[in-house]
């Protein structure tokens, strides 16, 4: 049970305790606490004993008649203990003694020691007959002096109970709180600033619950474990340093910016920049469009020695026997199909001329469609393309793991062709194919280096005749180190328009897809180089001009300032 400090403790008591107190208050209290049910002395004492008492003047006393020995009322502990002053319970003779001093009526409730309570409850000593002691005769002045000393002796004996202040003249002392005069003379720092008293000793200890609710200065009657205090509220606020706060704010800002949609950059570009962009785009278009429209063949084709990796591919294909099975992995993105188309066409034309048996597979969903388009449109003039004399295994789902499985056991791999109920391995052309190493040559067609790298890393050891790559121009720089690896994991590369043109030249072709694009490619590349040079030169000039302006300002600043000051004055 809990209640606040401003709440009446009586209101927070349980109902049963309130009823108990009410019942006790309604019960008739006999004077001096006598129990009405106690037997009358006249009824129990014999006549001879009563006579003796009356004869010698003994009071009718019994164990029950003493006030401090009378039986306790069973409900008395339910009433709140009213703080009473010990001086009120003292016998009259002690009051007289205390009243002799100036501080006689000071309460001593702050020192409730057990011995003092015992003598408080004792019978008045005046009623006990004391044997008379022989008394000497003294002069009057000496007797007066002796009375004063006797009084002083009595005061010394009762020193622990002598109050320090007279009641009513000084404010009532609060337990644990220093008086103002003592606070003033206290040396600085000599006492702890914090109150080290236990909780139940504090003035606010009235908050304890249970039957003693509302009472101050008492120990809790219940163990702490069963007290139903309101749990303390701890602050959930983190204690962070300024640096941590700054880092947290920066991190939060980054996360918020990540979630925000990017604005339309096109509207934020300044007009001169837009004009420059338009001019650059127009220049490149013109450089590309003019050779294409004129179908000129002015640009010389590159020498075969320039790209030896192309020659390596040509040499490997050129020595293939007829009907040699060739595996082609077509992991090509449709976006770069147009750029790679010339190189693919040149190489596959060469393979078909060698009457190789082509087997296509792709680890990308768009691969089978590109294969069909390539063979049906670009290579339609070839008998194999026209007659469909090739095998398209289709899409191999599963990425790297599926490719590894295919290299280990190609017949058990599930490709889209076998998934559709067809079994390509029943064809007589595949009788000699039990593993990937049975293919005479393996080619990978890729638009980015990562796809080709997977083929190299997972299957390099499986291809005894090596691996050849036909790639986009952007993948060639990253794949070139594999050409020089020890052991060599890539035997040759044909990449981009440049590779296509060179391969056509190796095959002594004067007309081809690469050759048609070569002039436009050369002029476009030249225009781009020129624009880069012009842009770099312009940027450098602008930077130099800004530097020169800044230098002028730096040198002229000391001279202009006084002039400005004079004008201002």
């Amino acid at each position, binding site marked *: 049970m809990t209640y606040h400090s401003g709440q009446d403790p009586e209101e927070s008591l349980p109902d049963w305790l309130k009823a108990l107190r009410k019942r006790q208050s309604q019960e008739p209290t006999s004077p001096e606490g006598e129990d009405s049910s106690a037997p009358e002395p006249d009824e129990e004492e014999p006549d001879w004993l009563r006579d003796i008492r009356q004869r010698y003047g003994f009071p009718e006393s019994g164990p029950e008649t003493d006030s401090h020995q009378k039986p306790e009322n069973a409900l008395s502990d339910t009433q709140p203990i009213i703080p009473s002053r010990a001086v009120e319970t003292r016998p009259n003779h002690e009051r007289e003694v205390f009243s002799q001093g100036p501080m006689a009526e000071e309460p001593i409730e702050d020192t409730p020691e057990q011995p003092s309570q015992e003598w408080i409850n004792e019978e008045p000593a005046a009623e006990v007959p004391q044997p008379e002691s022989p008394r000497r005769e003294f002069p009057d002045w000496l007797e007066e002096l002796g009375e004063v000393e006797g009084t002083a002796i009595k005061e010394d004996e009762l020193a622990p109970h002598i109050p320090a202040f007279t009641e009513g003249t000084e404010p009532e002392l609060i337990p644990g709180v220093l008086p103002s005069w003592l606070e003033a003379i206290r040396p600085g720092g000599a006492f702890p600033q914090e109150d080290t008293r236990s909780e139940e000793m504090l003035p606010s200890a009235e908050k304890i619950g249970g039957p003693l609710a509302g009472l101050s200065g008492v120990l809790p009657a219940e163990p702490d474990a069963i007290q139903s205090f309101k749990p303390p509220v701890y602050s959930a606020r983190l204690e962070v340093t300024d640096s941590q706060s700054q880092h947290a704010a920066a991190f939060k800002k980054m996360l918020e910016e990540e979630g925000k949609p990017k604005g339309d950059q*096109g509207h934020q570009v300044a007009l001169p920049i*837009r004009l420059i*962009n*338009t001019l650059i*785009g127009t220049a*490149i*278009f013109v450089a*590309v469009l003019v050779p*294409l429209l004129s179908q000129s063949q002015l640009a010389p084709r590159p020498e075969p020695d320039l790209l030896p990796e192309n020659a390596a591919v040509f040499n490997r294909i050129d020595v293939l026997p007829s009907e040699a099975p060739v595996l082609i992995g077509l992991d090509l993105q*449709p*976006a*770069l199909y*147009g*750029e790679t*188309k*010339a190189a693919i066409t040149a190489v596959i034309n060469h393979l078909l001329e060698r009457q190789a048996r082509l087997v296509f597979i792709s680890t990308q*969903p*768009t691969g*089978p469609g590109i294969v069909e388009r390539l063979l049906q449109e670009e290579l339609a003039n070839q008998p194999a393309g026209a007659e469909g004399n090739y095998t398209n295994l*289709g*899409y191999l*789902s599963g*990425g*790297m*793991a599926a490719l590894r499985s295919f290299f280990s056991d190609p017949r058990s791999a*599930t490709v*889209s062709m076998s*998934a*559709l*109920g067809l079994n390509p391995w029943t064809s007589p052309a595949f009788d000699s194919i039990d593993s990937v190493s049975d293919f005479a040559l393996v080619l990978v067609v890729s638009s980015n280096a990562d796809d080709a*790298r*997977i083929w190299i*890393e*997972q299957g*390099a050891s499986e291809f005894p005749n090596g691996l050849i790559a036909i790639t*986009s*121009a*952007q*993948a*060639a*720089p*990253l794949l070139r*180190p*594999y050409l*020089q*690896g*020890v*052991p*060599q*994991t890539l035997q040759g590369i044909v990449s*981009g*328009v*440049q590779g296509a043109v060179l391969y056509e030249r190796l095959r002594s072709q004067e007309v081809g897809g690469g050759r*048609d*694009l070569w002039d*436009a*490619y050369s002029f*476009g*590349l030249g225009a*781009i180089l020129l624009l880069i040079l012009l842009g770099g030169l312009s940027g450098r000039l602008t930077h130099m001009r800004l530097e020169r302006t800044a230098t002028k300002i730096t040198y002229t600043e000391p001279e202009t300032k006084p002039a400005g000051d004079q004008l201002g004055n």
Partner: protein
Amino acid sequence: MISLEINPELLAQIGLVIAAVLTLITLSYAFRDNPIFRGVLYLFVGVAAGYTAAIAVQDVVLPQLAYPILDQLAGTPTKDVLDLAVRVGLTTLLLTKLSARATRLGSPVTALLVGVGAALAIGGAIQGTLIPQVGAAAGFFDVGTFDLALQGGYYGEGIQIIFEGIILLLATTSTLAYFHFGAQSRGKQEPQRNIFIDALARLGTVFIAIALATLFTGVLQATLGALIERVSFLRDVVNSLFGLQ
């Protein structure tokens, strides 16, 4: 019943025109961003996603999971029961990733996929990339080739071998030093790299810049090749439509 027969050549012409228009709209981005370009961009993204989903359903889900289950229910099993149970079980567990409450059930399958992929990638990288590249770098310091060049009187080739070896050594060590971020703290000063490592790292920036420029050149060549192919396509469409050649 009316049968609608369309000339295939006409269909091809219509397809060419649509492709040419879409190409022109796409190329217009080179000059300025515009809403029509964005519409075509969304069209490409949607078509690519739809095509991929159709391929996945047609070539993977139906033949490898749905049809075997139906065959099993029809009493004409085409797959082993254990094989089918594993497929169905793993697929079901993976589908639980769609639910926030049952997502833990799909974690073992995801762990299997990631673990197998990581093992294959690491093994392949070591065997197919790291070892061959280390061997290639060490090959430039083959003393036997240098001795043969000197004994044969090919002093120019000998000097070339030494030069290539020095360049390769500097490029390799300086590039590796650039990615060495270890630093030592001296008292209350900020942690600083070793002076020798710092000098090598500065040299490494030169080689890294050359490598990045090479990659940029490759991207530029690929982009230019794609542009030329598209412009060539437009030229062919115009010639085809107007009978020019």
